[in-house]
């Protein structure tokens, strides 16, 4: 089968405008009859559900959290990019587009990224109108800060809680629609499968997490806004509930999965403290604006940081990337941190050789004063102190990379539709905009661009033209999928082994972190695939879930998600093994430049890898979408 990206013709700058003017509209009276199911209530899901309801569609929205306001977008700290050029520093739509394409190491689709940059400015307008309390200058205008991987100041922020404030804006817009009866909201409801009838996505199967009841929901289109899969590593900065289940189920029903091996390891997280750890905490990358990253020059140096003189410190990012310094892109900053720690120069408990590097504010405090630093990063410093018991005003922070964001996701065309008609994927759940590496403050931008300004138009084009037979949950296809979901739950509950789902999750996480994490090689990936297969068989034999299906059963919820991670992990390794090049976050040790940077192979791998499901444990089928670059020149990324 051929992947049709449906990129409109015409010059890059005019594609979206032209497409918007040409796509079919749904008559307002007909919108009232169209029912759209939105799964997920983060930035992408909430903004889409609210905007679609405003247009007049019937919308049902589902989330597994107890309230739509708790989706994981809420944890984003740093900010949101937009090409407003308020700082007069030379920013433009083209520059934001170019930075994003280059930051993604030329593995994203040009037309999508340009559109993202194009609508970015309107997102700020929209959020401001909703009452998002963005940081302001004394004159009352909006303030900006700079962020990793770029040289202009284009990031809008609300203290260190930008994701929270943007999500509350979208949640409030959604709440308005719920209150006026245009959206039916189902919290504590987890999507467990997709129903496809005659090639069209027509509904989902959902488990009520309080009563355990499994129910079918029919509609005219399904939108997956279900986030990323970093929790395949067990330890990540994602919320505990984040999972791959919704998009994995869609993949098993025929949607293609694109670039699953593109996973981002964030450079500034609080290092792990012990084996009990169940989650890692991110410190906003904005800290790199004023913090300087260093390790001792000497291996195994156990002196406390203030006793290490200036000339014995290695500010390695400033040394390696003089023009970007501490603001080098995430993938590079992470890999270099791993490298200095692997050399035995890491810091933290255990003395020399620990898994951490210093992020030091001493110079910034001396230059700007304690007050200015507290104003910029106060809540982040407090959070760090609460977790570690150390005061960053006194001693440098210790940081280490952790899994954070997944660029891969369901393959979508220019309209954000997957390879199943009527099934859309938006936000982190799709693969479209970040290529092999995402720049800071771009995830919020993408989630809201998809939900507010792209999907509401493109979904209409489908609904206006699709021939949609009337279906309801009594349809045999719904009955069948619902039966399969019920059977799977029964199977999980019936397994009476000795190990918990959590224990299995830790094991697979370890395998993925070691073999398919910050750097990968062919031998390790093959080994990992063998281990995953063996662990998966063991899981179904030896897991113990306990409790009942018709009850609030968090162990059962977790077990179902872990079971899907087991299948998914294999696909991720498969993708990483097939991509015999290094690009962005995908670092294959066999393919690097003499300076240790990622070495792309545009000739052989200048494409999106979209995988088709062929059966559990069976080799997936590869489909390629070639990436054509018209506006940008492919170059090796240089941040020196």
């Amino acid at each position, binding site marked *: 089968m051929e992947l049709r990206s449906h990129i409109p013709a015409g010059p890059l700058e005019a594609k979206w405008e032209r497409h918007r003017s040409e796509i079919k509209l749904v008559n307002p009276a007909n919108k009232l009859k169209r029912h759209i199911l939105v799964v997920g209530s983060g930035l992408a899901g909430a903004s889409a559900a609210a905007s679609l309801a405003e247009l007049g569609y019937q919308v049902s929205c589902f989330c597994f959290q*107890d309230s739509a306001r708790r989706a994981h977008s*809420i944890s984003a700290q740093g900010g949101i990019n937009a090409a407003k050029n308020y700082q007069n520093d030379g920013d433009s739509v083209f520059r934001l587009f170019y930075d994003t394409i280059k930051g993604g190491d030329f593995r994203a689709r040009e037309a999508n990224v340009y559109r993202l940059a194009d609508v970015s400015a309107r997102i700020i307008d929209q959020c401001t109108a909703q009452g998002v309390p963005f940081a302001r200058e004394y004159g009352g205008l909006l303030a900006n800060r700079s962020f990793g991987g770029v040289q202009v100041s284009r990031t809008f922020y609300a203290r260190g809680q930008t994701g929270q404030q943007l999500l509350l804006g979208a949640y409030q817009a959604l*709440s308005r629609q719920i209150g006026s009866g245009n959206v039916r909201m189902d919290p504590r409801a987890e999507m467990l499968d997709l129903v496809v009838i005659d090639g069209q996505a027509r509904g989902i199967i959902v488990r009520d997490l309080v009563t355990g009841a499994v129910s079918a929901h029919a509609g005219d289109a399904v939108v997956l806004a279900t986030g990323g899969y970093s929790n395949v590593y067990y330890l990540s900065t994602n919320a505990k509930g984040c999972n791959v289940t919704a998009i994995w189920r869609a993949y098993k029903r025929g949607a293609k999965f694109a670039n699953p091996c593109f996973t981002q390891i964030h450079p500034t997280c609080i290092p792990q403290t012990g084996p009990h750890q*169940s989650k890692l905490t991110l410190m906003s990358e904005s800290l790199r604006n004023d913090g300087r990253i260093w390790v001792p020059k000497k291996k195994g140096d156990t002196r406390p940081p203030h006793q290490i003189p200036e000339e014995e410190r290695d500010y390695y990012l400033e040394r390696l990337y003089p023009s970007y310094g501490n603001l080098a892109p995430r993938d590079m900053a992470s890999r270099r941190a791993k490298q200095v720690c692997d050399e035995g120069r890491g810091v933290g408990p255990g003395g020399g050789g620990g898994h951490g590097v210093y992020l030091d504010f001493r110079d910034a405090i001396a230059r700007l004063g304690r007050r200015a630093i507290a104003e910029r990063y106060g809540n982040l410093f407090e959070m760090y102190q609460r977790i570690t018991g150390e005061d960053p005003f006194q001693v440098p922070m210790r940081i280490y990379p952790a899994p954070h964001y997944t660029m891969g996701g369901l393959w979508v065309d220019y309209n954000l539709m997957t390879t199943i008609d009527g099934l859309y994927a938006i936000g982190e759940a799709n693969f479209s905009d970040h290529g092999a590496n995402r720049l800071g403050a771009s995830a919020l931008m993408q989630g809201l661009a998809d939900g507010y*300004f792209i999907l509401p138009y493109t979904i209409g084009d489908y609904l206006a033209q699709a021939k949609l037979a009337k279906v309801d949950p009594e349809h045999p296809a719904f009955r069948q999928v619902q039966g399969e979901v019920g059977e799977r739950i029964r199977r999980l509950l019936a397994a009476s082994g000795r190990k918990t789902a959590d224990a299995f999750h830790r094991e697979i996480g370890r395998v993925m972190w070691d073999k398919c994490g910050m750097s990968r090689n062919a031998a390790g990936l093959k080994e990992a695939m063998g281990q995953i297969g063996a662990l998966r068989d063991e899981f179904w034999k030896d897991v113990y879930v306990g409790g009942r299906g018709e009850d609030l059963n968090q162990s059962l919820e977790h077990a179902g998600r872990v079971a899907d991670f087991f299948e998914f992990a294999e696909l991720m390794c498969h993708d990483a093994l097939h991509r015999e090049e290094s690009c962005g976050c995908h670092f294959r040790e066999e393919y690097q430049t003499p300076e240790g940077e990622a070495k792309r192979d545009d000739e052989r791998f200048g494409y999106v890898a979209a995988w088709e499901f062929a059966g559990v444990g069976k080799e997936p089928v590869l489909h390629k979408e070639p990436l054509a670059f018209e506006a940008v020149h492919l170059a090796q990324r240089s941040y020196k």
Partner: protein
Amino acid sequence: MRVRLHVWRQPGPGLAGVFVRYDMTEVSPDMSFLEMLDVLNQQLLSRKDEPIAFDHDCREGICGACGMVINGRPHGPQRATTTCQLHMRSFPDGAELWIEPWRARAFPVIKDLVVDRGAFDRIIQAGGFITARTGSAPEANSLLVPKRDADLAMDAAACIGCGACVAACPNASAMLFVAAKVSHLGLLPQGQPERDTRVVGMVAQMDAEGFGACTNHGECMAACPKEISIDFIAQLNRDYWKTKLAPKPQAKEFTGAA
């Protein structure tokens, strides 16, 4: 370190609950409170006992999902800290801890430490927003917001909707939660057109949900993990009574055909 836990176990809504004792050994002071409960749950599962149900998600103090009353204090003893960010080093070795769900009529217990906070969502639906249809927004910098107003609005907007304020209040009042949203939006120029209807709508819903009245105990502010000030409650009262006592003139309702 060792701790003795007494955890509220309740099999379902409206059923009787009871404190169950668990003795934990080898607790690391670097564990978060929820990691300690994770360890206990793994032990319970390996004994084929039912694990303790509790809400949690982000584990970095921002999603507002977690929350339990620890020795009588919502989110435990540490100031400005959610349960997930509380670490065991805050407790002495051998501590005895009583762990309960939020207790309020408007937050019925679902199971163990899990409660239903849907009332908060319904209060927001009753007016906790600014009506700004997607696509209709003016250029962001066309509206000037003094920095002090934006900062104060942000102080109020920092609410995570966890419900600790309700759990801490002797009257189980939701005034701090409602006041935070009313003030956040009311402090900004964008929020002015709906300022009156918002406060009236949200307060009416709060009362309908069965939350108690505010009698100025201030326990809410002490328990709030985001340290939201009760000054915002004063602001809410001003807005509310101004609207009630001196309503603005209303245009006549237009009905009938042109």
